């Protein structure tokens, strides 16, 4: 067991860590990464350099047909693709059919609730549903790799429905 002075020091450190930090100003275009700012998607609409692949990064996926989302969201414990995503699927399928050399990773995810291994299976089923829908509309089998991350890679933190609905998703990741 730690001695009292060490205890107090640690508690003091904790309290200091809790104090509001001075905001740090980052000059625009200085290349602050999402990691540094702790931000996720939709931030920093300034200049964007050439993208590089991060292994299994859970940021916002890009690539594919212009102006079309790379994320398809699902209802709780469901793997059927909601009708509103028909145009998204069609656009990606056509894009893939038109460029046979392009490969994508179809990554399935769930929210954090319930069993981790069941969620791996559920996310796999979501990824397979998207894969089949893409193939039905012209994408080639060899262009698609599926991977299921279950609840291991949430995109939104928190334990409420607004986070859960963002995390129940399939991401289409180009260039894999």
């Amino acid at each position, binding site marked *: 067991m*730690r001695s009292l002075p060490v*205890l107090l020091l*640690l*508690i003091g*450190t*904790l309290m200091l*860590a809790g104090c509001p930090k001075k905001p740090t100003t980052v000059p625009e275009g200085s290349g602050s990464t*999402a*990691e540094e700012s*702790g931000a*996720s998607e939709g931030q920093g609409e300034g200049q964007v350099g050439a993208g590089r692949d991060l*292994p*299994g*990064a*859970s*940021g916002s996926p890009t690539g594919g047909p212009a102006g079309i989302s790379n994320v398809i969201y699902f209802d709780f*414990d469901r793997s059927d693709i909601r009708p509103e995503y028909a145009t998204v699927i069609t656009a990606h399928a056509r894009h893939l059919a038109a460029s046979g050399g392009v490969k994508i990773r179809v990554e399935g995810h769930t929210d*954090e*609730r*319930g*069993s*981790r*291994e*069941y969620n*791996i*299976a*559920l996310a*796999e*089923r979501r*990824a*397979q549903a998207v*894969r*089949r829908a893409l193939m039905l509309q012209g994408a080639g089998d060899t262009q698609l790799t*599926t*991977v*299921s*991350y*279950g609840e*291991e*890679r*949430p*995109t939104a*933190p928190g*334990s409420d429905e607004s986070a859960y609905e963002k995390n129940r998703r399939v991401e289409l990741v180009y260039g894999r």
Partner: protein
Amino acid sequence: MKLRRTLLVLVALAWPVSQAGAQLTVQILKGMAESVPIAIVPLAWDAAGGVPYDVAATVQADLERSGRFRPLPRSQLVEMPHAASEVDAADWRMLKVDYVLVGKLEPMPDGRYELRYELVSVANGERLLGTAMPVDAKALKRASHRVSDAVYEKILGVRGAFATRIAYVAVQGPVTKRSYRLVVSDADGANEYTVFGSPDPIMSPAWSPDGRSLAYVSFHTGLAAIYVQTLSTGNQVQVSAKSGINGAPSFSPDGKQLALALSRRDGNVDVYVLTLADQNLKRLTDDPSIDTEPAWAIDGRSIYFTSDRAGAPQVYNVGLESGVRPRRVTFEGSYNASPRVSPDGRLIAVVTLDRGGYRIASVDAQRGGLQVLSSGQLDESPSIAPNGADIIYTSRVGGRDSLAIVSSDGRIHQQIATSAGELREPAWSPFQN
């Protein structure tokens, strides 16, 4: 005492998350009202120099942590007997103590120590235990856990599980930059070390029946694969890397086979059995629904698993002979998953959806009756101690995954505080000799 516990929790939170050698602290939240009062007298040490290890303190901590005992604080010990013959039962009766543990530690000529202990019943002065064992200098802590095991068994009739270990996954860092470690520690959280680390997810650790290896899922190649790692050598062998998911490994009782969940190319998640020696793979379930999370029955002749074939996840059991229809095991509630079989085969621990919260429950393997044991909102990953008395699981506390323990009857609750990141997917080791 309450204040000290609060402080411990604060220390745990304040400790920098980068601290690698961080330790776990196990705290009892709710014990049994009828816990057994016992006095644990510090062992005699007559040799030169200081006592090399405080055996009694470890035994006291073990028994108290179990929630089944109420050890007398050392400051209230009125006398210090060191042998059963020196115990005056009348004196201890006045302190409302039911049992007294006494003993002696002595150096042996070969550098080892002799640990002698005796357990006395205060009611009639009877000596219930009397044991002497030689112990390596490095093994005094382990030997102390064995003393705890023996006392626990003598008084409660169930073998203690203090000298066992737990494996779990420790996760640190923000969502965008996680690090995962597969960790093994003693059952009391001490002596933790990293078995395998990766920036990609590690999941589902499972012990081999001899306690020498762990099977687990790792994504470190970019895709899920199952590995078996020998703890003594660190030797890691990839045993399944099929297309699609490779998940939920579970060793057969004889250690020769691994049940696992695969989706293969068609994406249909089913349970398979892999024979480790020759890599022979046998499909056990074949259903368009999700079949996953296999757990072997204790006789090795059937397997429990999770399936949503009836629309929502429920637990089923299927024999290893082909052509047998799976039997549904859980009927109460709309969500039952992650089956784990108790050592006597009578109970199945599951995750159940209970009034809006995911909780740990035990299910009668024959009759299906379900008893909710935990009270969190996001409890998961149950693993049963080898003596069947306790279930360790993951619980979300303050927005972080941490470990907790509940007794199989739901009466005793323990929280395991961590000094580092999040802890999840605990797996309790088998008994180890």
